[in-house]
């Protein structure tokens, strides 16, 4: 066997291995539904802090789910909601609802790279990352905040429109949860998400704290997941535009 053939075989093995790791992480986090109350703390470059709260509900899982984020605090933004319909074969559909004007607006695909209402998340970051929408490559192993992790590169497939050229994922070997994701535009690292405070909730290991850093703006947003529940009974009809308008 030539050297080149050996290298190709090895590359193929590692590629398959990386995908298997991500698939396993996705499988372990699967739940029919999810609900939590989130607290968002945005800390800008000058250290100024702002705080918001939302309620998150999701029905379905990975790549074929529907989710609603509805803000509850502060009073000025109460009722503002985002409906996300994830699709396995293409980018999600998103609508925002503002109760004061009684209007929903579609968040265009082109706008997914913009910041999610002043936080360091972009609209795209709120979508689910289905394993089949990316190609993977195992880059090696590293320790992140004391936890041994696989370091994997993911690149969006052509069918997956993304602002990011590629991402580097760190997945904890211990429980297949994400420890860190770094998102790149070309070769520039633009956002870094750290996943901390991993707890077992109803048999699913879940990070309860996500810190997203915007390295261009030098700001960060901390999302704390409270009152987290999985497999809560929910109806399909609660994840429609009508429901978005009705619920407030």
């Amino acid at each position, binding site marked *: 066997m030539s050297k080149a053939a050996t290298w190709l075989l090895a590359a193929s093995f590692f590629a398959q291995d990386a995908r298997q790791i991500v698939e396993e992480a996705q499988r372990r986090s699967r739940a029919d539904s999810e609900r939590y109350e989130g607290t968002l703390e945005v800390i*800008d*470059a*000058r250290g100024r802090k*702002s705080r*918001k709260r939302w309620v998150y509900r999701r029905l379905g899982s990975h790549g074929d789910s529907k989710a609603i984020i509805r*803000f509850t605090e*502060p009073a*000025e*933004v109460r*009722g*503002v909601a985002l409906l996300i319909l994830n699709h396995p074969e293409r980018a999600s559909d998103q609508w*925002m609802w*503002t*109760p*004061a*004007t009684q*209007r929903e*607006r*579609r*968040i*265009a*695909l*082109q*706008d997914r*790279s*913009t*910041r999610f*209402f*002043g936080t360091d998340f972009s*609209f795209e970051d709120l979508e689910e990352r289905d394993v089949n929408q990316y190609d993977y490559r195992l880059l090696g192993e590293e320790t992140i905040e004391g936890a041994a992790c696989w370091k994997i590169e993911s690149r969006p497939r052509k069918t997956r429109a993304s602002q990011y050229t590629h991402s580097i994922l760190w997945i904890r070997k211990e429980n297949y949860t994400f420890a860190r994701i770094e998102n790149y535009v070309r070769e520039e690292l633009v956002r870094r998400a750290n996943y901390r405070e991993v707890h077992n909730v109803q048999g699913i290991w879940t990070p309860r704290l996500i810190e997203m850093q915007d390295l*261009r*703006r*030098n700001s960060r947003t901390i999302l704390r997941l409270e009152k987290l529940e999985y497999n809560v009974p929910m109806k399909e009809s609660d994840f429609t535009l009508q429901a978005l308008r009705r619920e407030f």
Partner: protein
Amino acid sequence: MLLARLSWAYLKRHKLRWALTVAGVALGVAVLVAMRLANRAVLASFHRTVDGIAGRTELQVHAGDLGFPEEVLERVQAVPQVRAAAPVIEAALDTGLPGQGYLLVIGVDMTGDRSLRDYDLESGEEAIIEDPLVFLAQPDSIMVTREFAQRNGLEIGSRIPLGTAQGTRWFTVRGIMRSGGLSQAFGGNLAVMDIYALQYVLGRGRRFDRIDVALQEGVSLAEGQRALHEALGPGFEVEPPAARGRHFEAILRSFSLTLNITSLFAMLVGVFIIYNSFAIAVTQRRTEIGILRALGATRGRIRALFLGEAAVAGSLGSVAGAMAGWLMARWIAGYVARLLQEVYGVVQNVQTAPAEPGMLAASAGLGVVVSLIAAWIPAANAARVDPVRALQKGKYQVLSAGETRARWWLSAGAAAAAAIFLWLGQSLVLFYAGYILAILAALLMTPALALWLARALRPVLAWLRPVEGALAADSLIQAPRRTSATVAALMLSLAMVIGFGGVARSIYNSLVEWVNTTLNPDLFVTPNAEIANRTYVMPGEVGSEIERIPGVRQVQLVRSARIPYRGTPVLLVSAEVSKLAETVPRRPLEGDLDDMYRRTAAGQATIVSESFARLRGLRLGDVVELPTPQGLLRLPIAGITRDYSDQQGTLLIDRSLYRQWWADDSVNVIRVYLAPGASAEEVKRQILERCARGRRLFVLGNQEVRRYIFRLADQWFSMTYNQIAVAILVAVLGIVNTLTVSITDRRRELGILQAVGGFKRQVRHTIWMEAVAIGVIGLVLGLGLGAISLYYSLEMTRRDLAGLSLDYVFPLPLAAWLAPVILGAALAASLWPAETAVRGSLVEALEYE
């Protein structure tokens, strides 16, 4: 050096005339600079606003002022060549803040608009909006420029009032834009709001004004345009942002042309003043020239002497004029901006008239060149002076028979060519060439005609004052050269005034007829304080509410807005045509009254204004294709009428068609007819009580609207009044110059008159009568050329500017008004020279004897 000394000595002796000559150049250059800078300032302000707002926008999708339904956005976003597409609404709202006027509010979708526009160009680190989510969640959120905030002492959390469709509402400043880019637009009086909040505030419904588009990398503008046209159909315009500037310029075309004509006119007047001054100087200095020639000065040196003086006068006048023009420009730009706002409903914030060094230098250079051209003939005449004839006083002023014959032939040739060009047809080039030739013919004939008129005036003057009148007339008869330039300048000025004034009067007469026929409702209900403004609209259901009010006989719903037609904006008026047929018996210029209303009311045809048809070469029965969000609406022209709603032309369609093709139920004017005996005041009160709650609403009486329309007309025609002022100024300058020379020339004659017992008052009377005679000659010739000029001005209005065929009505009231003004100005201009004549030294005057 010797020649320079001679010039200096002459200048010192005739400071006032030099000052007048320099003033003539300065006047021409100042008006030219002021008009051009003001025009440029307005256009530059518009372009700055367009560019500032456009940001990285490569193409804009629009369908005129009417906008289009929101669904179009998804169709645009789905085009593969499109990288980003952002909806936009724009409106100039009254701020209610002292001295701030209008605030241009741009409604954008704040969730994604930054892919096209930068709101914080200087720094990406500091959040310009305190909290983007609060900004979106609260419809009273507004983001203003740092300049606007500083001017008004605003900071985050401050509140500002704005006129909205719901009346005056308070908005909270939740963002301040840094300087640069977008914030430079509209003189910094710019604000950004969430588009959905602005829709609500303006009562626009689910519609956008336009969609700004950025293309994918590697996609050319042409490819993008093609792809968007294919996706959207012919009802939409897809153009680069710069095209908006072209539309604006199209709206302003006739206005800009008027400004240009005024500035050229001022320059032409300057030419005559310079020509006059130098012709006089040559006359006065012919003895000096003769001596110089006798001493060996070449013809070239003599020519250079006068051209050098002209260059100095031109330079001084040009520099002074350029500076004065620059100072005047800011005031004129403000005036023009106000005029545009009132007449066209186009709000512009013109804060500065930029000092463009290139333009100022070019204008000053033009002033010098024009001075040299104007002085060329007198300088050439000076060079031709025969030393022997130079000592024969007075002879030089006489026109030779050969010279007169040559002028006659040239003049006849020019007049014949002008007539042939006019007869040849519709070519604009030939038409304007004919106009210039007609003026040239008149100018060539001026000395001979002035002489003939002076002879005709002699018996009248002699009858009025036997001695003084005869002397005054003889002075004009014996020296026609001396007065011909003044008469020519006066004639030209008056001809222009009669031309423009006549057009103004014809339009005014037609306007009165149109207003009487068309604007006959008792009340007009509108959400805009000024009826020409179409920023705000209201739902059609307001009409039903008004219809239920006791005393209301009929309501007519009208929605009007500019839409693009073959690249220029035209006014589309949708109304209930069957009702209009009952109340507005608008006599068609082409077509049958009953048939045009019947077919248009049935949605089968359109009635267009004469200007719309003529400017586009359309005739009765031709089919117009109107772009609509649903595609092209094809309608035959069932009638052509006179309509003054818009200079680019008007199309009337039935409201049912508008609702169907534009999917819009809004109105911007409701015409209300009262039942016999109903009180307009009571109905107005009831309309306000029932319909104005939580809604911006104005109820205007018929007389109020009429007054408003005529005020607009007056503002538009105010340019004519400025021209009249310039004409009078020219008359005064010219006559003062001419009389000064006349007195110098006739010092001996006047001295003898006084020596043989003539009274000082007789000398005064002689000069006064001479001045008034020059005024009369200028007036007669001016009115004559004015009659021709009026014909050309009316044709210019019909063929090129507005497509309006106006009746030829000589503006007799204007002429009657001009007569005493010009004669009074002539008399006033003669006062100082007359005093100089009587106060001169008798010994000095008679030294020759």
